[in-house]
């Protein structure tokens, strides 16, 4: 299948290896990957901060770009960005021109693990990684997209990886977009609950499906001098020994 990669602005600017790994995994399992260089952002920052006019402008651009693609699916390594695109119909509710276009693009957009497990029905991507790891359920992926079993299924098939369930894996990491810098003290207090759980789990790596959570968690782990690696699911799945 041909897929159009929606890499997300965060990965594009701050964590390119997530994008590179995603492409590698998709190609390895036989997909043709297209990358439309006109893409920028899904508009989540503006939407979440209450700037709807700006959010609609940027969302319209996203829709205009991706609706032109003849790929079978638009795939993204981010639960929160995928959830944002799935909210486009709500953003354009009552708009006779944009609502159908928003619906069409939203229906075609998938988060990576969901795409692998549900669309391609692949649970083993031939990855291997030695060590003990655990998973953090990113909020939007979990609650907006119902991603729970998909990443765990994929991880369990990574050869050599010992998976342990994190205490309160579904508790928020405290990022929340601009919340992390508008209320940094609360953001870090929430984060420390996650960090404590990670330390108790005694793992070599913490894996998640959203770069934003990984930046939040990784930023605190490194501030505390922890040896625990932060890894995106795509990076884990592209790993081979």
């Amino acid at each position, binding site marked *: 299948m041909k897929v159009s990669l929606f890499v997300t602005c965060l990965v594009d600017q701050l964590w390119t290896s997530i994008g590179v790994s995603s492409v590698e995994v998709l190609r390895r399992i036989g997909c043709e990957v297209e990358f439309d260089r006109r893409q920028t952002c899904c508009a989540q920052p503006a939407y979440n901060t209450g700037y709807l006019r700006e959010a609609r*402008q940027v969302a319209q651009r996203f829709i205009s770009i991706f609706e032109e693609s003849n790929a079978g699916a638009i795939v993204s390594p981010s639960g929160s960005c995928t959830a944002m695109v799935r909210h486009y119909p709500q953003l354009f509710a009552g708009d006779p021109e944009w609502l159908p276009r928003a619906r069409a693009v939203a229906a075609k957009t998938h988060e990576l693990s969901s795409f692998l497990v549900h669309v391609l029905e692949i649970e083993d991507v031939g990855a291997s990684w030695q060590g003990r790891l655990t998973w953090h359920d990113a*909020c939007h992926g979990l609650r907006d997209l119902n991603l729970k079993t998909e990443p765990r299924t994929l991880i369990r098939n990574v050869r050599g990886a010992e998976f342990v369930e994190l205490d309160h894996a579904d508790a928020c990491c405290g990022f929340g977009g601009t919340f992390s810098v508008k209320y940094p003290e609360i953001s870090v207090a929430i984060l420390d609950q996650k960090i404590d759980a990670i330390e108790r789990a005694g793992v070599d790596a913490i894996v998640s499906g959203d770069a934003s959570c990984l930046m939040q968690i990784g*930023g605190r782990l490194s501030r505390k001098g922890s040896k625990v690696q932060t890894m995106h699911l795509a990076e884990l799945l592209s790993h081979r020994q």
Partner: protein
Amino acid sequence: MNHLSSETFRENAKAALADAQLRGALKNATSLFGERRKVAAASLPNWEELRNQARAIKDEVLSHLDKYLEEFVRAAESRGAKIHWARDAAEANAIICRLAAERNARVIVKSKSMTTEETHLNTALQAAGMQVVETDLGEYIIQLADEPPSHIIAPAIHKTRGQVAELFTAELGMPPTDDIAQLTSTARATLRDRFAAADAGISGVNFAIAETGTIVLVENEGNIRLTTSLPRMHIAVMGIEKVIPRFADLDVFLKLLPRSGTGQRLTTYQSFITGTKRHATGEGPEELHILLLDNGRSRMLSHPVTRQSLACIRCGACLNACPVYQQVGGHAYGSVYPGPIGAVITPQLMGIDKASQLPYASSLCGACREVCPVKIDIPRLLLHLRGEISERKGSASERLAFKIWARVMMSPELYRLSSIAGRLLQRVFPISRAWTSGRDLRLIEPKSFHELWSDE
């Protein structure tokens, strides 16, 4: 009483985070409540269906609220209840003070009512010379401490037993003890005396049944039964959104409320009160007054997203699930209604100007929506309010920042240039400092994915 202000939420939160005793109490309470709710919900195989039914019933009522209120009033009046309408807090307090004064009520006992906390009724009654005693143990504790409630269903949950003991020793002359059973029986003995002397009882209302004119009250302690059956006058205060259509609907709500609030199948007592007693003699109040309060609720009907705020059955589950509430507790919100539901109804009831920080005090994680028995989409409500605030009250610099952001995101060229600028400025941006106080900053990549793709 020294209420914190909603407008200083961030400062309030910082102070709360520094209070180790508070954080311990919060951790204990919210995790216990959360666990119990989870077990109770899991014990009902049709839990999801019940939530859907409850929400459908609430949607039906709220979209015809005037009709159902009128039906309730007719039914209640036909059974002897007297109905009073209050447009705002001041009017509600004035009506209740007048009722009490007309009957020479000196001692008034109260059971827990968030609505009367909202109107600051006790202050008004005390100013009018009446003695008001809270009889719910948690409310009694905070009344003695002169503090606002910190949780919708467990008002004194921020206090340790040691703090309660100190309070009782100071205010009631109780010999020092840490034993919770002792503390409870001290409160019970003191309050029995007030019950015996009470001229009037004031309660809230959990549900008001339009079909029969019945008010329903739910509790564990027995103080509501005492408050509503011993004194000769009973005043029940309710927000206009408390009405539900049919008596049979209680099956749904009585399954959801106790489980969501405390993890119980049923609380110890439910009182179903319909009008006044039949005979002049016999037990029970001679007069029942029901006060219907608006105080900003009718405004919330004007949009489907805000209307769902009124579906709330005041179970408190969202507070226990909220990562922000779990860390800072209820007082930081500066409102009688804290936590996720508080963050959305406080700005709507009090006005955006009085509570403009609250809708931003959330990571939008959605845990609240997941546990809400009536499926209120609180994150969506928060976004709606953020939209309103940025429209009416937003900071000029933030508005400008997002205008620029949109321009950049609309143009691949500007986007590319901004990333170059970002690489240069990232360490000095104010945003970077708010981040780096607790976390290391991840730097912008020397080559973006766009550029790597082009290289390929």
